[in-house]
């Protein structure tokens, strides 16, 4: 185990060195700069209710993406989102530790439970793992409800804040996101990531060339659930509330949709997916009343056509991406970006 750790760390360090000299680095800096100055151009509401969730869900989607890159497609990631959210808040409230420490400890707890679930799933094939993870997310609701006196999960409660909501929190979330996603990027590019992808591609072959698939699957689980827990803690901060709703299947399917639509396996995919889906959710509802007026005659049984139509659209979008653009939207954007660059000449290597 020690050797793996040393090798992995070394590989990660190499990747970091490579990256800091690559062209991607400048692109990354540009994105960071844009995100940093956004609050100057948009209202506080947009910063707090549109951009901040985009950032937090980018972490969440990236965590799911990392796990999926090892062939483990979890359908119950909301369990860890929620564990992180509840744990960080409960720790801060019940033991008086500063909420920021609570955030880290909550993520660690999420990773610890992730280890247990990962152990249970280590020998499972894709469909079974999906079922077990989904099942876990359902059972955890029952568990939290049964221990409501301790968790306060049924009615929910107010989470103690690390920083003020709005612009200060935006920057905090952004910092966490930049660091987390960067770490996940390094991991995915390192030997660890290589092992994950090998297992994903063909587990039997990976075993044959000597990869300890069980160990790497577990590592992927632990890393993924750590960041999912972190995203959960941050999300609870962003709405200053945590309750059983966080375990709903919707929150399990969200990172999947974001990662797949954005581009499964890439680093920018989950980020793009988060932006797209969150933008849809923030802005499309505003046409709901117009839709009702237009489409009600077509759908007389429904009073409010907007939400089901939106969800149906997302379902179709997901299927379409998987069938026609399995690499997600990211490569399309990259193609567009390359096209724009080439039309302004100047080739950099």
């Amino acid at each position, binding site marked *: 185990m020690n050797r793996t750790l040393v090798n992995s760390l070394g590989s990660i360090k190499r990747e970091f060195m490579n990256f800091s000299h690559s062209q991607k680095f400048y692109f990354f800096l540009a994105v960071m700069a844009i995100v940093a100055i956004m609050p100057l151009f948009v209202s506080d509401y947009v910063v707090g209710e549109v951009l901040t969730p985009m950032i937090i869900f980018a972490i969440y989607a990236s965590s799911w993406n990392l796990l999926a890159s090892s062939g483990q497609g979890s359908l119950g990631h909301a369990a860890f989102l929620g564990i992180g959210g509840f744990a960080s808040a409960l720790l801060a409230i019940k033991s008086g530790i500063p909420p920021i420490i609570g955030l880290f400890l909550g993520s660690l707890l999420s990773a610890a439970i992730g280890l247990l679930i990962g152990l249970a799933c280590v020998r499972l094939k894709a469909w079974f793992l999906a079922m077990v993870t989904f099942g876990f997310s359902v059972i955890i609701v029952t568990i939290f409800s049964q221990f409501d006196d301790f968790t306060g999960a049924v009615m929910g409660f107010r989470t103690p804040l690390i920083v003020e909501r709005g612009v200060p929190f935006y920057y905090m979330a952004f910092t966490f996101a930049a660091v987390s996603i960067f770490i996940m990027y390094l991991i995915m590019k390192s030997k660890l990531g290589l092992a994950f992808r090998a297992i994903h591609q063909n587990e039997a072959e990976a075993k044959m060339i000597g990869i300890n698939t069980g160990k790497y699957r577990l590592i992927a689980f632990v890393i993924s659930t750590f960041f999912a827990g972190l995203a959960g803690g941050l999300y609870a901060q962003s709405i200053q*509330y945590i309750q059983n709703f966080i375990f709903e299947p919707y929150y399990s399917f969200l990172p999947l949709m974001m990662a797949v639509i954005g581009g499964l396996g890439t680093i920018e995919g989950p980020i793009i997916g988060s932006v797209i889906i969150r933008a849809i959710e923030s802005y499309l509802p505003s046409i709901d009343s117009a839709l009702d007026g237009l489409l009600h005659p077509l759908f007389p049984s429904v009073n409010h056509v907007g939400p089901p139509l939106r969800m149906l659209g997302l379902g179709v979008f997901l299927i379409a991406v998987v069938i026609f653009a399995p690499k997600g939207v990211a490569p399309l954007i990259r193609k567009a970006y390359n096209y724009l660059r080439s039309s302004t000449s100047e080739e950099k290597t």
Partner: protein
Amino acid sequence: MQKKLIVAIVVAIVAVAVIVAGWQLTQLPSPEARPIKIGLVACYEKAEGQDMDRAAKLAVKEINDAGGVYVAEWHTSVQIELVIADTQDDTPGKAVGPVTRAVTEDQVDLLIGGYTSAGTLADQVVAIENRVPYIITGASTSLVTRRGPQANFGTATDEQKIDDAEGMSYMFHYCTTTADYSKTVVNFFAESMKPLLDSTYEFDASRNLRLAILYRDDAFGKGVAADSKSLIESNDLPIDVVAERSYPATATSFQTDLTAIKDAKPDAVYVVDFIANTAEIIKEGQRDVGLNTVYIAVECCEDPAFYTLLGEYGDKQLLESKFAPYAGPPFYLDTIETYVTNYQQEYDTIPGMMGADTYDAFYIAKDAIERAGTVDKAAVRDAIESCAIDQMLVLTETGKIEFSTGTDYHEIAPVTFVEQLVWNEAVGECRSVIVYPATAPGVGELKQADFVLPEGYEPGSS
């Protein structure tokens, strides 16, 4: 000499004219006058949220058509502009955003609405922090106004407390709480049903009424079950809770739970859930399980869909309610008659319960702004606190709408009652009659008929 007199009179007239003109000018509508923005916090994905929307729009239309709201500060009446904060399914994750936008972007003067307990507890924080008056017409938990220092933090856990007296002063709860409905239900069983059972079946007076509680496993269901039990205990009522079963909120069939309840031989079953599930329980209980007892539903079932779903199985079953659009005409209060008629005319359907609170809240807001003379939020808050208008669609213990300033902070004292459903062959649906309590302030005689046991009723064991 005469010239000076004439000059003096002319000067006096001119002076008076100038003064009068000047006074008139200050009474012209101030250029600051603008429509009053009221944010409606409603969950449009649910039928209840849409009922709130219709009720709100009806109230706004009525007020605006009658001239609007007079704001003394601006020397004119202005219209109400409705700002929609659609919380979709009212889970905390979806509720906070729309309310934040209404408060920070749309800059509403006042908020009305709220539906679920969790969602409202989450979204009210925005209003508390920004000092925006919020008349909460939903949320069955009393914590929405009792989580602050004025109520000694109520039953709030440490996590729920908000130690901000000023902020909390902007919260008002114009709704019944789980304690309000439980109180009426258990009192009904003790005062009305038990004597009837005892005389019909010649039970000994010392025999307690056997009650079963079947509830959905969430804050609402658990709250009602807990409140009912504690009320029975604290008031030493002659009721035994012989069975208590809960099921996940996603369940659609309850036959096994009903069988277990049947085994416990209850005299009555208190069903705590929303319309679809309650109707299903009442039907399955009678049709599939053979649990031929009397069922009582919670007031959130007071909705056209409930009566439609129940069909004949609703005959002689009970509904605790605070607003009874089906118990008439003639209605127990004129305002109800007017509202039901207008609502039906406008929307071609009978109003539900959630909309009733919302409708009243708009009139509370109008009254408060007019008495405050300004839209300044602190002044409006004070005016709401001193509200004393006559009851409208929700009955109160004093006959007036008044918000308490004691430890039941900013709550009203509503009167809830029990209706019995009666099958109406002509309409093909059940209609209701009020059976308890006998009287209510401001209304006088409330009871419309005596409570009777359903056909084929079987009491629990003797």
